């Protein structure tokens, strides 16, 4: 469905008065997301996870330099044409919602962006919110009146009410307690099982492992490996890269061990 081939991203920065240098941020990333699959991209802060999402959605800042290829269903990816229609983003925080507009109204806007006619927007919004356990009371609230978990589910409703076949969720569990985190991830899993492609970006390996099909490990802008989620077991011997093994062994559930040498 989505194919990222040898993607590199750098940032142009002035060097002295006339010269410019390019600071690399992502190097030579290749990965695919299939329909019906949940791929997790895991990395520490600063590894370049969000840049990857921004590149797919065409939201990179103007001074970014991109090389490599992005393809969607075999054709070159045109983010402006697909964004919000075929590819939807579940953003990281409620900062992406309009603070002065009631939640239900914003979901109706999303229905409009997804191409629904005006008369169909309100029922579609109500149904989408209901799918994620949000009723009329939640729809009447402003974003800051929602709890973190409710806001995340409202954004999931916005991202999924159209025909988007590929969902990109940026840190969907950040700031949520375990029950709400599991609920959001389970929703994403259900969407994958219904045939959509789901790309989850997260720093929380333990939370995504039970639900993801494959896990791509990103470090300092480079892909360390893409492993089936089942490879994260035992002492990590099934993992190819030392970094992925170290990440696995650092989980409190496993070894809680920092990297060798501190």
């Amino acid at each position, binding site marked *: 469905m989505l194919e990222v081939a040898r993607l590199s991203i750098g940032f142009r920065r002035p060097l002295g008065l006339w010269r410019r240098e390019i600071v690399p941020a992502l190097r030579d990333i290749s990965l695919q997301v299939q329909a019906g699959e949940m791929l997790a991209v895991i990395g*520490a*802060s600063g590894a370049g996870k969000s840049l990857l999402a921004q590149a797919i959605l065409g939201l990179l800042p103007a001074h970014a330099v991109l090389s490599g290829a992005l393809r969607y269903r075999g054709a070159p990816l045109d983010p402006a044409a697909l964004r919000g229609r075929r590819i939807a983003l579940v953003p990281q925080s409620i900062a992406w919602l309009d603070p002065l507009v009631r939640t239900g109204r914003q979901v109706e806007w999303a229905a409009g962006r997804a191409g629904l006619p005006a008369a169909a927007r309100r029922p579609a919004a109500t149904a989408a919110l209901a799918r994620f356990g949000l009723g009329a009371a939640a729809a009447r609230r402003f974003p800051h009146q929602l709890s973190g978990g409710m806001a995340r589910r409202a954004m999931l409703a916005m991202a999924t009410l159209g025909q988007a076949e590929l969902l990109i969720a940026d840190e969907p569990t950040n700031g949520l307690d375990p*029950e709400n985190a599991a609920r959001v991830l389970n929703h994403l899993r259900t969407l994958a099982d219904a045939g959509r492609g789901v790309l989850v970006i997260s720093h929380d390996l333990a939370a995504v492992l039970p639900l993801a099909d494959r896990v791509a490990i990103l470090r300092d802008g480079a892909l360390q490996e893409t492993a089936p989620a089942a490879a994260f077991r035992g002492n990590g011997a099934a993992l190819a890269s030392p970094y992925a093994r170290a990440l696995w062994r650092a*989980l409190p559930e496993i*070894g809680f*061990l*920092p990297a060798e040498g501190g």
Partner: protein
Amino acid sequence: MLVAHGLHHGGGLLDGVSLTLAPGQVVGLAGPSGAGKTTLGRLLAGHLVPERGTVRLDGVPLPARGFCPVQLLPQTAELAVNPRWRIGRILEEAYTPGAAARRAFGIQDTWLRRYPHELSGGELQRVVILRSLAPGLRYLVADEISAMLDPLTQAALWPHLLGQGLGILVISHNAALLKRLATVTWRLEGGRLHRLPMGDPAGAAADREKWRAEISERV
């Protein structure tokens, strides 16, 4: 000994909470979102004054001025620093951490000239932690300080904190983390504390000892 007795706060949010933290003891605090964990942490560190009840350190109230021997490490490091100060100045707010201490927390010299927004959340979190470890510090309230960190950064951070010999209240949603760190874990729900049963206390203690031994070889 840090003793909170009969705390009532927030119109029933905390409805008679008593908690004791001994020197060097690590206690866990779990509970659903909105149960009042952060409020309890802020009361213990003297950031809030309880509507009823007392917080006493070795039998006396927390000092109203000067450096408080109970420090709160907040969930969001960004909100605990002055955005207009450089990292170097932020670090020296209460004392001057040496170069060795900075190294131990992985704080690079190049950061000292930067502003808070020029560091990642995890990097700034380490700055805020080192800032709190001033001479005279005896207790820490660590409110979800590693939830936003990747597993490796998290696993590197805790041994350093435990190595300070402080009494620590670890507030976390992560049951596995609490099992690793705490000898006692409480769950705050319905305004009251409930002691969480330890499945196998002797086994958990042995696991912690083994882990500490393994860690001390590495750091």
